[in-house]
């Protein structure tokens, strides 16, 4: 070390500075490189934004054709979906209802389970168990949806049919259960993050007033983490509403509104399954083709607004924990 230092001082005579100003060519080179780099990185960052923009543009453009022959009001208010009939009928109410139906039913399963699991993971189990269990739960999200679909058709459907005597095993209940399992990792993960982000202070306050763990969880922690929990639910909802393969395989695909409405054992059809199932055999630029794109627009608007809602609650959750 010492020796290296001394050679350095020997080479450079004391009192001489390295040149501190750039030469004109160095200056130009730096300028070009910096700006070129920025431009390239900016373009790369923009690709996903541009892609989303183009998708919106394309889907909307293709759906506009529908409005030239049919009315939007009829589309949104009638139930009959007979694209092959003469004349064709495009009433999408039953299909939209089907989407909302399985989404709501799957959330009815997934939300209580998800919140309880999140509470359990954040406050009850030891850190070591959580470190194992949470990644495993998140792994559920990595299973391809077609594998869930297989499970729904080959195992769950016969089971439901035998156990409860349903006329068909591929129905709203089957799809809802599978969707619930698929939404769970999102719900648990996001809710657990917001619950454990709350910190010790509030819990200690509650314990010091004589509250049990249960009381602390339900009266203080979950209410205080409600923003993050709502965001978790909305994200789970997006997952359920946008899911295609599972509902296509498991829901039975009958474009009907269950009657009576609470009979979850009937088959339904969702928007996503309709698009996926019919798009392949629909000639381009027919009214059926346009009608499917119209459905795509509806779906986009739905998920886009859900996304905004979840962003809002996530930012609120961040603010809340930042303050506390």
């Amino acid at each position, binding site marked *: 070390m010492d020796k290296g230092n001394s050679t350095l001082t020997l080479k450079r005579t004391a009192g001489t500075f390295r040149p501190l100003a750039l030469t004109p060519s160095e200056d130009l080179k730096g300028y070009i490189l910096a700006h070129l780099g920025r431009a390239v990185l900016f373009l790369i960052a923009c690709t996903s934004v541009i892609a989303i923009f183009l998708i919106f543009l394309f889907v909307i453009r293709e759906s506009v054709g529908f409005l030239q022959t049919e009315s939007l009001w009829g589309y949104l208010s009638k139930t009959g979906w007979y694209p092959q009939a003469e004349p064709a009928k495009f009433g999408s109410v039953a299909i939209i209802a089907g989407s909302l139906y399985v989404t709501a039913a799957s959330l009815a399963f997934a939300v209580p389970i998800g919140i309880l699991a999140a509470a359990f993971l954040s406050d009850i189990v*030891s850190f070591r168990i959580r470190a194992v269990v949470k990644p495993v739960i998140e792994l559920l999200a990595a299973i391809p949806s077609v594998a869930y679909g297989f499970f729904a058709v080959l195992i769950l459907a016969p089971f439901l049919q035998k156990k409860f005597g349903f006329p068909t095993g591929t129905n709203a209940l089957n799809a809802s259960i599978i969707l619930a399992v698929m939404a769970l990792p999102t719900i648990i993960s996001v809710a657990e993050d917001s619950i454990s982000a709350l910190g*010790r202070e509030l*819990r*200690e306050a*509650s*314990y*010091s*007033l*004589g*509250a049990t763990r249960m009381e602390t969880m339900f009266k203080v922690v979950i209410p205080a983490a409600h923003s993050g929990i709502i965001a978790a639910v909305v994200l789970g909802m997006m997952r359920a509403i946008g899911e295609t393969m599972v509902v296509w395989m498991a829901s039975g695909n009958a474009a009907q509104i269950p009657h009576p409405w609470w009979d979850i054992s009937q088959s339904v059809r969702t928007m996503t399954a309709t698009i996926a199932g019919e798009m392949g055999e629909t000639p381009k630029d027919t009214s059926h083709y346009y009608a499917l794109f119209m459905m795509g627009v509806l779906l986009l608007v739905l998920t886009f607004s859900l996304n905004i809602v979840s962003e809002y609650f996530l930012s609120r959750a961040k603010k809340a924990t930042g303050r506390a």
Partner: protein
Amino acid sequence: MTPYSATQQGAEQLTSLPRIIARRQEQAGAHDKTPRPRPQAIVNSEGFSLYYGDKAGVKDITMDIYPRSVTAIIGPSGCGKSTFLRSINRMNDLIPHVRAEGRLAVNGQDVYDKRVNLVNLRQEVGMVFQKPNPFPKSIFDNVAYGPKLQGVKNKSELQQIVEESLKAAVLWEEVRDDLKKSALAFSGGQQQRLCIARALATKPQILLMDEPCSALDPVATGRIEDLIGQLKAKYTIVIVTHNMQQAARVSDMAAFFCLGELIEYDTTSKIFSNPSKKATEDYVTGRFG
């Protein structure tokens, strides 16, 4: 706060310490050397130690805390003051691998006995924390939280408890028209008095205060100190503080902790004017922290 800055702070305040002690002795009319008979202890610690894993938080603490008085626990950072305080209502249970040895009794009952009712213990031994930690709920719901846990459902009864507690914490006049407002909308000092009101609402016998003024400005600190003076007529108060002036102002008894051990425990005036141990003297005169 580092031990060093604690020392600095102590040193700065030293000038006024003898004055505070002298004034308090005059107030008490006490220059008599004969110790008055002490009442029955309400908290009784005998050879109490608390370990985090293998590391001792506090070692072999033997001291009695007397009812309707203010006991201050002073000492440098990391000396186990808070650990001892939090042992009294077993808040340390939340930390994994905690183990207690010896005996720590509240009102004659060893609180580390397996059969102890934690809910009742914590309602008898209230706690105020370093940082104001009101729930993100309304003022009313904050104060009513404890009574509701005890099963009080009657609206007018709750209303009465809330009013009494807020009055006892000298907050009522400021918030009487804003009971439905979120507690987070108030200032730090008000929030801390709200936390005191919340602790009082469970009708405890003992109030533990863990550096309750360290996050507050001097004005708010003064109000909390006045409040402590009023509360000791009805409650037993144990306060951990870094601020030696504060200990001298508010406490009747003072315990000096260092490195997890109790070095000296006596009346506040004795600790600050004529301590019997060298370490205590060094600490209260600011020579070491």
